[in-house]
């Protein structure tokens, strides 16, 4: 009888294990995922077309590349638009505090009064990279119809801007198998060593050299029917180096959890320059007369700026120390040879650390104009546009990733440019 009971308990436990086991499904695993996750092979399911519309003739044509979304970005957002989970990059209330930002802000056009009698409109499409995702109501930027700062790179049309403009959905590294690379064995986002005989994927599946958004060279060598399609447009810089926390809900938040963040190593600005070549300035001394804020691996902070960063806590408080100086709202690159850690609280050194595009901007979208990390139009950032908007349907303190600016930095906190420049 006792043996029977034990057997019963064992079987029940085993049943529970089988019933509820299973970790989160890492769909991409650092590289190309399984094909039918995004594509419909025969465009047929249940006796009807599974995929219609898209870049061809809406309503009559299949989606280009047999995607399971109306367009590439809609296909991605099938899985990545919700709130809560860290893999969501488009919430319904601005609460996706991912390092890149929340595409939710593209949907939010709001008004605010910076001073009495003056009403300003902050337009949604000015809050981020206006990716086109028809299924989710994201449309082409009507102001910036091509990328700003193209420089020596070709024109990239806003109508083609999509998730796969920056992320290589197939996860190839440096040309992938076709270019003789080893298999991608794991994600390249978390700082883990590659499995023997394999390489890690790129950080966040970001594209690198040889990548052509949409890969027209492979699938559609003569896309003559698609106006402005960037046939010859190719990446010239490899994906940047960075490591991030697996759980973004902790990233850039308050309190002890706030130590978890994305630690940037190198190559961010150079990578952004795949599109925005004209904004890249590796001459930090400004001798070339480009009159642009330095950004790039060679735009090192130097001992003076790094010292400012480490001392600066908030307006009126420069008692900080380098060991705890890291401020997720103003990140920096630690340098090519630096050891990266998503839990490091250390500020920059004066030799290797550099300023990058993401020191001031979010890659996806932010609550503010020009997708900046803080409102660059407010004297005191407690009065930031998205904080004093006429209506605020977004989650509490979402514009600053859950940070209560008044409680944590004071009502008279000035622009966060001061983290490096201390002009307040």
């Amino acid at each position, binding site marked *: 009888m006792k043996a029977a009971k034990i057997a019963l308990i064992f079987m029940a436990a085993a049943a*529970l294990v089988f*019933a*509820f086991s*299973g*970790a*989160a*499904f890492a769909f991409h695993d650092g590289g190309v995922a399984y094909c*039918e*996750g995004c594509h*419909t092979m025969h465009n047929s*399911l*249940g006796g*009807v*077309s*599974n*995929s*219609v*519309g898209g870049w061809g003739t*809406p*309503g009559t044509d299949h989606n280009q590349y047999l995607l*399971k*979304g*109306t367009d590439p970005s*809609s296909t991605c*957002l*099938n*899985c990545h*638009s*919700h*709130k*809560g*989970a*860290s*893999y969501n990059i488009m919430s*319904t*209330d601005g609460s996706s505090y991912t390092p890149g930002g929340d595409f*939710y802000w593209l*949907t939010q056009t709001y008004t605010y009064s910076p001073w009495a009698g003056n009403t300003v409109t902050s337009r949604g499409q000015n809050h981020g990279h206006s990716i086109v995702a*028809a*299924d*989710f*109501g994201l449309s082409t930027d009507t102001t910036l119809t091509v990328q700003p700062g193209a420089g020596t790179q070709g024109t990239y049309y806003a109508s083609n801007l999509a998730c796969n403009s920056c992320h290589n959905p197939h996860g190839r590294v440096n040309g992938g198998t076709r270019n003789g690379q080893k298999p991608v064995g794991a994600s390249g986002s978390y700082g883990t060593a590659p499995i023997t005989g394999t390489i890690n994927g790129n950080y966040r599946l970001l594209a690198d050299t040889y990548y052509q958004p949409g890969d027209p060279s492979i699938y559609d060598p003569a896309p003559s029917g698609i106006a402005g399609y960037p046939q010859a447009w190719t990446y010239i810089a490899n994906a940047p180096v960075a490591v991030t926390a*697996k*759980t973004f*809900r*902790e990233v850039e938040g308050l309190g002890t959890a706030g130590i978890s963040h994305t630690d940037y190593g190198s190559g961010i600005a150079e990578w952004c320059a795949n599109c925005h070549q004209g904004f890249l300035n590796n001459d930090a001394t400004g001798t070339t007369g480009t009159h642009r804020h330095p950004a790039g691996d060679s735009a090192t902070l130097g001992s003076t700026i790094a010292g400012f960063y480490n001392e600066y806590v908030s307006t009126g408080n420069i008692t900080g120390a380098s060991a705890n100086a890291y401020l997720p709202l103003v990140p920096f690159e630690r340098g090519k040879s630096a050891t990266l850690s998503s839990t490091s609280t250390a500020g920059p050194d004066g030799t290797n650390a550099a300023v990058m595009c993401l020191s001031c901007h979010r890659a996806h979208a932010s609550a503010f104009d020009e997708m900046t990390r803080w409102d660059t139009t407010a004297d005191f950032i407690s009065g930031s546009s998205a904080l004093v908007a006429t*209506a*605020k*349907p*977004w*989650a*509490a*303190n*979402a514009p600053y990733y859950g940070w209560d600016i008044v409680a944590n930095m004071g009502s008279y906190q000035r622009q966060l440019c001061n983290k490096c420049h201390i002009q307040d």
Partner: protein
Amino acid sequence: MEDGAVGEKAGGIKKRFTVAAPILFLLLTAFYRPAQAYGLQVSYQYNLADFSGTIPFSYGAKLAIDKDRGEVYVTDPLRGGVTIFNTTGMKVYRFGDASDLGYIEDVAVDKKGHIYTLSYNGSRDRFFIGFCDYRGDLLSRIEVSGLPAGFSHFRPSRIFYIKGGIIYLADDSQMLVAVVDHTGKCIRTYQLYKVLNFTPKMVMDDNGAFGFAVDSDGDIFLTIPTLFRAYRITPDGKAVSFGRGGSGPGRFGVAAGIAVDGNGFIYVTDRLRCCVLVFDKDLNFRTEFGYRGYGPGSLIVPSDVVTGPGGRIYVSQAGNRGVSVFSAVY
């Protein structure tokens, strides 16, 4: 053959039949299932509309049903407000733009037609239940009290009203449920990740729920997209899962909204496969409908789903496609 023998044999048969018939009847009764229970037919009816056509709600629109009056409520957190439609799918009313109701995340309706809003204050750092009349005018503000430790960061996004004045509040991303009475007093909580044998880290590692529903008996239904599964949890905390990943019929691509009808059929929307999967009360897959497209009855990224009287099934979706209404015939 003698008549007596025939009569005796006939009597024996009659006697055996007298005994067997009730047993046969009982057996038939016990195992009989009406054919229509497994013969579910679903057909597209119309989209929720006003006199200018389909109303294009955002991809985050949530649905609630007033089963007693057959009305459906659509809450659109992105665009604000609550829109009410009658049984024919025509817009009859809208409320929720007044500031006293804060930002409405979701609504529920009781038998008398009172509306309960799940609202957040102006800075969206605190929630409350708005107890409203049938016009959405705030009658009283119900503050939730008595939440236990572990619920300090409770941020519900769904509200359900079930019989007996019981209100369920669900935080899908943290997989927490608080059951409160009409005064807001917490009478029961569920840490669903514990029920499902998840560690908090597993929830943090993106195994939070997407769809959420509560039936009239207090059974909780939820979906977890990353696990390709849906779950039914009884009030006593027993959980059973169903579904599996894949792109064929009956498989989950991205399981999203979930609802159950009066016949026990469970409806699960699939954002990736753009269809609605139907399971019977024994959790067996029965049929699916919708599929991606722009024609009548097709769906673009279906999200929330509710069932109403008359076999109606309401499905919200993305692509500015509004809410599609289907009819189930058993």
